[in-house]
């Protein structure tokens, strides 16, 4: 990639003598300011976080050093990797606030991050091979592919030019103005214009031989996919206009950009990544009309992407600590879309799911803080001491934490909605958008652009303006403070006073919790109806008396009114004759981020399950009933299972609960195994009940139920703790008689779940003296299972299923067979499926198996193999996934002794996070996470005591050759040590590397002086002009320029703000000028 950037800067302060930009892994040839060559320094402290301290191995140290390194290049603080010295001739001009133009010529050679090239290894031209490239990154990562001010708060307008091979299409942000051939007619230049001020991180691009589909409903919307997938694209995108209409309607605001593009790429970094007027999706989201399960998932992703177009791309954030507002709003309006499209049940189910997720995470890992404030900038005041990473920068966050952060953000938005009503909420959004809309059409000089940036305070102000309500306490509770609330509730009924005595206790001492003071809603269903009570939770009062409305006498004739006005007959024989209470719910609207553990009698849970119409209540009842394995519970669950008006996800959950209850009731269970007769009645032929009907998935609810029931049934166990023979044969028959010929839909997910059912039926083998497993010793049942799996797996090679779901299930099943000792434990099969070139779902399933093998067998070889893959795999997602799988299922933890834990491993992991992952923030954080799981925060115990003396590696040897000034070793202390850029040591660049010796200079006194310069905020006007040419290399050691290159020119015109350089001290470096 060869590129050229031109920025125009309007200085807003006098004595501007240095300009700092962000740039990573770009090789910069020359920089000119107003036609004058300008010296520049390139220094990226994040390349290698800790220098020299080769014996320092504790994570606390790393985290603080890493945070310091990220701060040192943080554009929001006016820092950057690239520091350009304005030639002294121009100082005067700068003092007069005249325009400065900065020209940067650069190239990118085999970028490791930022841009991803997918070049399938087949015959044919690049276009025929489906080769493509796209930009990616986690948070602000645009600096990886061109020098810029890589901050969400620095807006400018853009002109982008891409010159690519004539067979390719370049898609980027903004409007495609024109496409022009180059003189030799072999290449095309795509000219894009983005007149709406946009921050650099919201710029992205994709180039490939895409097939183009103009949306039939909205001609401004264009979809792109890889060759041969057009029919899928057409089907998958057929409802996008509905999402558009929905958002525009609720926000009463038109989509801000004049066009929208969706690009589907292979080997995507994330499923969805949004940037101004375009979104890049994983190609695996495309599906044909025969696929049921993927359809809602794809729609959800599209809806998310579109929500982020409004809040995230168009309206950007002021600073990192305001991120929650944007994530919250986009997540919230996405939730509204879910409610409209998938129904209220689905929406409430989703809210409950999200709430459970965040509650579980916070209780386990500690609180998630939405709006961190960093007063004074002192490291000591870490608001989240329980975390092993800093939340000061997006780039230091663990991925898991970030996901939870988003989850909490939209839940808090929902709480705000509860407080101020949805109408006001939408008015606020509308106001924000229309302000931004007005601002976007203004010129830069009008200083209106800051309206397009959203900050927490701005958001709160507009809420109070619109609604007139004070939501301060709510914000303080959930936004400025981390943690969730944990309630324990119990009650007693006082018959004399006809009063319900409710006791609600809180746990606010354990990690991840906080104290809640305020109102809480309690709903009591009595015989005479349902009543809401709002109680006040206060410091000391635990007990609350709630008067009951009904007398306990039972009127048998009377129907019982429910919350929704319905009146129904109930069989009241189960209840306590003294009490009029049917069931009690605490905080039924999920108006608090909380976990409630409530005690009520089993019959009350059963009534709640049967008669409460809210899916959340039903789900709560189901999970509570697990503790009451009685015939009555069984009956309640079975009734729910049979009721087809009931929400299908509730029924699915009931299956698993029923399996658990059946196992607990093993000795008293009568009749056929749980669910068998039900399944037979619902899905089998009338005449021969052992044969399943030919598949017909027209009714999706029963389809999901049909998929789930066998999986749950397989969890049943008999007195010997084995899966009952009857159940196993039943499942085998389902597989045998499965007939999809008459079905309109594909049955791949169904078959995959049948294999999962087989997996679930496995129990540990009886092993004698750990002898090697042979075929002869194979249990006959297992032999049957294995035969099915073999056949499925082999058939999959001939007739692959959608997303290879069946292979994925088979791999899981084989690992389960191995783990239970039925077949010899052996990772080689999984390793072959984990290789590059298999479908990504298959790879992840195989990697999961290898990770599991590594843990069970404590295999150092496999662990090493996995770590090698983390370093070398071409797909970023897979590398990230391995680390998160390892962290989730670690081969050892800091608590346990393990032979795997040795010095070499520590060194390797340390190197991985220190310098090996500098091209991908997410990966680095993943490595930090793993390190934390394995060794904890302090120095790993397996290491010998620290010794004196430094071990110099190759890089440091180079460092020694240069004059090194080492003054202090503490983080943030002044350090100055030039080292050679890691990438320049590559073989490919040896011949010209002498020209590119960039010296890494750890900027002095940056951490200590931000206050001083913070308010300086000079506003420069940048004009970027940029040309890019890109070459594709084969990854060979020899320097090999292919002639089939995709070339690419790029030009952009931009207006940006930039902060002033931190200090007046200039640092000279032997920079080049050719």
């Amino acid at each position, binding site marked *: 990639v060869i590129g050229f950037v031109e920025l125009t800067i309007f200085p807003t302060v006098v004595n501007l003598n240095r300009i700092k930009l962000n740039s990573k892994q770009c090789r910069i040839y020359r920089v000119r300011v107003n036609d004058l060559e300008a010296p520049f320094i390139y220094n990226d402290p994040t390349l290698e976080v800790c220098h020299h301290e080769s014996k320092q191995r504790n994570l606390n140290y790393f985290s603080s050093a890493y945070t310091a390194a990220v701060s040192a290049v943080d554009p929001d603080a006016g820092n950057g990797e690239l520091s350009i010295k304005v030639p002294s001739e121009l100082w005067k001009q700068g003092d007069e606030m005249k325009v400065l133009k900065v020209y940067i010529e650069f190239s990118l050679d085999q970028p490791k991050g930022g841009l991803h090239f997918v070049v399938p290894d087949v015959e044919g031209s690049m276009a025929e091979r*489906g080769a493509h490239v796209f930009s990616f990154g986690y948070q602000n990562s645009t600096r990886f592919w061109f020098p810029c001010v890589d901050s969400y708060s620095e807006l400018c307008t853009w002109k982008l030019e891409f010159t690519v091979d004539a067979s390719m299409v370049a898609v980027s942000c903004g409007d495609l103005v024109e496409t022009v*051939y180059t003189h030799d007619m072999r290449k095309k230049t795509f000219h894009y214009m983005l007149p709406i001020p946009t921050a650099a991180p919201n710029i992205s691009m994709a180039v490939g031989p895409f097939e183009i589909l103009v949306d039939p409903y909205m001609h401004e919307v264009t979809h792109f996919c890889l060759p041969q997938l057009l029919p899928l694209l057409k089907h998958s995108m057929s409802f996008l206009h509905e999402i558009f209409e929905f958002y525009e309607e609720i926000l009463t605001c038109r989509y801000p950009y004049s066009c929208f593009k969706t690009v589907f790429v292979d080997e995507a970094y994330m499923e969805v990544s949004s940037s101004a007027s375009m979104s890049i999706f994983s190609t695996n989201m495309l599906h044909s009309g*025969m696929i049921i399960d993927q359809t809602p998932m794809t729609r959800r992703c599209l809806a998310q992407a579109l929500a982020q177009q409004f809040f995230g791309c168009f309206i950007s954030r002021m600073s990192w600590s305001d991120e929650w507002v944007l994530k919250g709003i986009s997540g919230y309006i996405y939730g509204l879309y879910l409610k409209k499209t998938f129904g209220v049940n689905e929406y409430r189910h989703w809210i409950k799911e999200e709430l459970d997720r965040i509650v579980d995470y916070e209780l386990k890992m500690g609180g998630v803080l939405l709006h961190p404030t960093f007063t004074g900038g002192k490291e000591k005041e870490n608001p989240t001491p329980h975390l092993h990473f800093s939340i000061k920068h997006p780039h230091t966050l663990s991925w898991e934490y970030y996901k939870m952060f988003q989850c909490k953000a939209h839940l808090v938005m929902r709480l705000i909605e509860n407080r101020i009503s949805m109408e006001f909420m939408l008015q606020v959004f509308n106001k924000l958008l229309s302000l931004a809309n007005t601002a976007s059409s203004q010129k830069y000089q009008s200083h209106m652009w800051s309206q397009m940036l959203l900050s927490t305070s701005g958001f709160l102000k507009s809420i109070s303006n619109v609604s007139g309500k004070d939501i301060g306490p709510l914000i303080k509770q959930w936004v400025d403070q981390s943690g969730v609330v944990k309630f324990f509730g119990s009650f007693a009924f006082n018959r004399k006073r006809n009063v319900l005595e409710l006791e609600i206790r809180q746990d606010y001492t354990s990690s991840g919790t906080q104290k809640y003071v305020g109102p809480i809603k309690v709903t009591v269903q009595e015989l005479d109806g349902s009543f809401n009570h709002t109680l006040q939770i206060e410091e000391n009062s635990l007990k609350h008396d709630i008067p009951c409305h009904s007398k306990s006498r039972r009127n048998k004739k009377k129907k019982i009114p429910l919350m929704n006005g319905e009146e129904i007959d109930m069989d009241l024989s189960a209840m306590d004759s003294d009490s009029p209470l049917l069931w009690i719910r605490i905080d039924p609207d999920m108006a608090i981020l909380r976990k409630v553990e409530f005690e009520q009698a089993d019959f009350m849970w059963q009534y709640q399950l049967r008669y409460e119409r809210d899916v959340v209540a039903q789900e709560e009842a189901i999970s509570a009933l697990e503790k009451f394995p009685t015939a009555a519970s069984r009956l309640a669950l079975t009734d729910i299972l049979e009721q087809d008006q009931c929400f299908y996800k509730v029924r699915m959950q009931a299956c698993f609960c029923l399996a658990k209850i059946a196992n607990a009731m093993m000795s008293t269970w009568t009749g056929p195994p749980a669910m068998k007769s039900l399944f037979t009645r619902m899905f089998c032929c009338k005449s021969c009940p052992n044969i399943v009907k030919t598949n017909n998935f027209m009714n999706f609810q029963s389809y999901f139920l049909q998929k789930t029931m066998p999986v749950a049934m397989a969890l049943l166990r008999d007195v010997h703790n084995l899966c009952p023979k009857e159940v196993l044969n039943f499942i085998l028959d389902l597989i*045998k008689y499965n007939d999809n010929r008459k079905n309109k839909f594909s049955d791949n997910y169904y078959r995959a779940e049948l294999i999962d059912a087989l997996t679930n039926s496995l129990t540990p083998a009886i092993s004698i003296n750990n002898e090697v497993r042979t075929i002869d010793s194979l249990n006959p049942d297992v032999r049957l299972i294995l035969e099915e799996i*073999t056949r499925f797996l082999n058939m999959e090679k001939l007739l692959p299923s959608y997303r290879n779901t069946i292979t994925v299930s088979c791999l899981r099943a084989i690992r389960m067979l191995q783990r239970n000792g039925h077949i010899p434990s052996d990772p080689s099969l999984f390793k072959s499926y984990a290789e590059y070139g*298999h479908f990504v779902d298959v790879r992840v399933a195989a990697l999961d198996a290898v990770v599991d093998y590594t843990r069970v067998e404590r295999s150092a070889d496999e662990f090493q193999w996995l770590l090698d893959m983390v370093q070398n795999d071409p797909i970023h997602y897979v590398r990230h996934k391995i680390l998160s799988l390892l962290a989730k299922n670690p081969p050892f933890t800091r608590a346990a002794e393990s032979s795997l834990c040795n010095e070499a491993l520590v060194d390797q992991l340390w190197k991985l996070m220190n310098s090996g992952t500098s091209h991908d923030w997410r990966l680095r954080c993943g490595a930090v996470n793993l390190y934390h799981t394995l060794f904890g925060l302090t120095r790993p115990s397996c290491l010998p005591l620290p010794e004196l003396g430094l071990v110099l590696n190759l890089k440091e040897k180079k460092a020694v050759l240069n004059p090194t000034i080492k003054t202090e070793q503490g983080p943030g202390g002044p350090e100055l040590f030039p080292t050679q850029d890691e990438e320049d040591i590559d073989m490919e660049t040896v011949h010209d590397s002498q020209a590119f010796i960039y010296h890494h200079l750890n900027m002095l006194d940056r951490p200590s002086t931000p206050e001083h310069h913070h308010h300086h905020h000079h506003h420069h006007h940048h004009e970027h002009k940029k040309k890019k040419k890109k070459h594709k290399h084969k990854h060979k050691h020899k320097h090999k320029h292919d002639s089939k290159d995709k070339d690419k020119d790029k030009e952009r015109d931009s207006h940006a703000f930039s902060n002033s350089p931190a200090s007046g001290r200039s640092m000279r470096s032997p920079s080049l000028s050719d």
Partner: protein
Amino acid sequence: MLTGERSGGNKSNTSPAENYYLARRRTLQVVVSSLLTECGFESAEKAAVETLTEMMQSYITEVGRCAKASCEHTARSTPTLSDVVITLVEMGFNVDTLPVYAKRSQRMVITAPPVTNAPVIPKSLVAGQKRTHPAYIPSHFPEFPDPHTYIKTPTFREPVSEYQVVREKAASQRRDVERALTRFMAKTGETQSLFKDDLTAFPLIAARPSSIPYLSALLPSELELQALEETDSSEQDDQTDTENNHNNNIHDDTGADKENAVLPPGGVVPTVKNNEENMIDNPYLRPVKKPKVRRKK
């Protein structure tokens, strides 16, 4: 001549035909021998006689075939003398010498071959009534073929109507096919095994990475498409529609390119209006422009 003609077709017939053939062959042999005697030979090797017989036979056959051909050429069905004469002429035989040769003195008289019963055409299967021509077909047209050649004779066993058995059969049949197929694939290709001691039990076809894994994983297989066509014709229409459009798109692109290349440099490219795709004003569907600088040259 006719006899010669028939010999080709009748070889593999039943024993009466065989007899007939043998008798004819014997007569021919006698003829050859007598001709040889006429020419003054006293003895001949069996092989030589056989060869000559063969030659004679093929000559006669050829004459017969050609005569028939020329007769049919003139739209007749029975060869006449002139047909034979023409044939002989064509084969380079001087017909004028034939009467002389026939009346030669030392001609040996050969007894007529023993009358053999003409080959019995095996009785064809009697099925139904032989149909006569309907009134509007003249009688000289060939007769209807035997009824057995066109009459549909339904033969069936009592169909297995029991649902369970049908399903059972379908299921086990499919399973057997699948198993056989996968076993075959496994035997012929590379395999992976779950057991170290016995590599042949549960052979798994080796996982082979593909260079574009998403294609096979995302696109529905042909089998599924087929099933879809069978179940839902409207869906199928959709499918072909999209394919057509896909082609259209490609054509559009290349078409636009070509058009552009033909146009004088710098000329304004007119948008093609009759194509529906182009009615949509989308920048990605617009034709690619030529470089501007060219105009200056």
